[in-house]
């Protein structure tokens, strides 16, 4: 799940200042789970906009607004209203916002701040475990990502600042390299402990995201 947080409503109001006819799109997938873009949040946004004197031309929750195929199907339900709409408030991650902007060719306003790929412990408690950092090294680290979980994103072992067990930065948390060591021992994969990772190739990840 991609974690989002609600934006400050004043920022949204400011961005909408010159627009009168507004559509609202929610995300029934990730943003729904983290209570930033589900049907309830879409209704709340509609209520707020109307109270602010805007005309809400349509509201819709799309299963995955980041998926053009799904978007193309679902947006047909508001096709006519969209023609009359000046701007669309999108309650999804940044990928959804941009996909809707590109597809509808309307001014889009993001209603959320995009955070990270998250594990859901329960609603309201999330953890970043994966940074989507291009080449996955989990097969060599005992299944824990040192790039994401180490605040320094190190590849080849702990920094000089840990205290033997806990992280230098988040002192109440175990150093991820200690965890990785324990997991590799547990699965009898000690050979991987000696593996030396080459520096990350950022040129590769830049090419992947090129637009």
């Amino acid at each position, binding site marked *: 799940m991609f974690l989002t947080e609600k934006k400050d409503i004043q920022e949204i109001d400011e961005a909408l200042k010159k627009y009168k006819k507004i559509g609202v799109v929610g995300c029934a997938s990730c943003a729904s789970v983290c209570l930033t873009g589900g049907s309830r949040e879409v209704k709340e946004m509609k209520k707020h906009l109307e109270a602010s004197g805007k005309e809400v031309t349509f509201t819709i929750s799309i299963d995955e607004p980041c998926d053009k195929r799904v978007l193309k199907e679902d947006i047909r339900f508001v096709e006519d209203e969209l023609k009359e709409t000046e701007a669309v408030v999108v309650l999804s991650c940044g990928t959804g916002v941009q996909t809707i902007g590109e597809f509808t060719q309307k001014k889009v306003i993001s209603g959320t701040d995009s955070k990270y790929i998250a594990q859901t412990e329960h609603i309201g408690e999330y953890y970043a475990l994966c940074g989507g950092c291009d080449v996955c090294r989990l097969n060599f680290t005992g299944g824990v990502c040192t790039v994401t979980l180490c*605040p*320094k*994103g*190190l*590849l*080849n*072992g*702990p*920094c*000089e*600042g*840990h*205290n*033997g*067990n806990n992280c*230098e*930065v988040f002192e109440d948390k175990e*150093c991820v*390299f*200690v965890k*990785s*060591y324990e997991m590799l021992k547990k699965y009898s994969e000690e050979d991987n*402990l*000696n593996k*030396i*990772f*080459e*520096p*990350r190739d*950022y040129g590769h990840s830049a090419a992947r995201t090129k637009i």
Partner: protein
Amino acid sequence: MQIIPQIETPVSKNYSVFEENLIKLLNAIKNNTQNNTGTYNSLPQIIIEQNFGFNALLLCRDLKEKHKIKTAYAFNMRDKNRISLLSDLITLKQIGLKDIIVFEGVHPLKTEFKSAKPVYDIDILGLGLMLKRGLMNDIQADLFNFGAVIGSSAPVDFLKAKKLIDIGADSFFINYGGVNPDESMIKYIKSKNKKLFLNVKELSIKGSLNDFIKSIDNFGFDGVIIKITDENLNVFTRK
């Protein structure tokens, strides 16, 4: 066992005054036999660390050229991507400084610059690999004496030391956090004929410097690096 002071370049002190004070400090250390400071020609007399203050490379150059002091340059991987690192390495090459000491670096969240982007483009092992192979024709393979700062309080530190030896690190600086370092790690590093130092912040030294040095005398370190925060008032000048 040689005692080597390490100091960060300051933020707000005058460059020339700071430089003069460092010379006075080094002379005081040299003349104070109680500080156990023998001088081995191959080891640096002082380590200048780049952190928040003025450009440490400039000071390294002046200490070396104006004052003929063997100086090592210490820097972290927190603040520099590989382009910026290359620039530093080329400068080091130009001024003829060979001794570099590298550490991952304290995370910005633990400094006064909490909103700074932590770079950590490559880790010290990655840098070691690049240096031992050579870099972009400008930095020939093995041009520098590559010193790595490591912890020694967990088995994973030992593994990191082994990897650093595999890539050809020349010397090791074990961070001292109040507990004596793992003896098996010390033995291992020494068995590979690598130079080994203990890295100590002066605040970690509870009694006198002499007593501290005696307490670690049997570990077989080649030297002790004492990180001081002020060039005038420190563990060397304390009466």
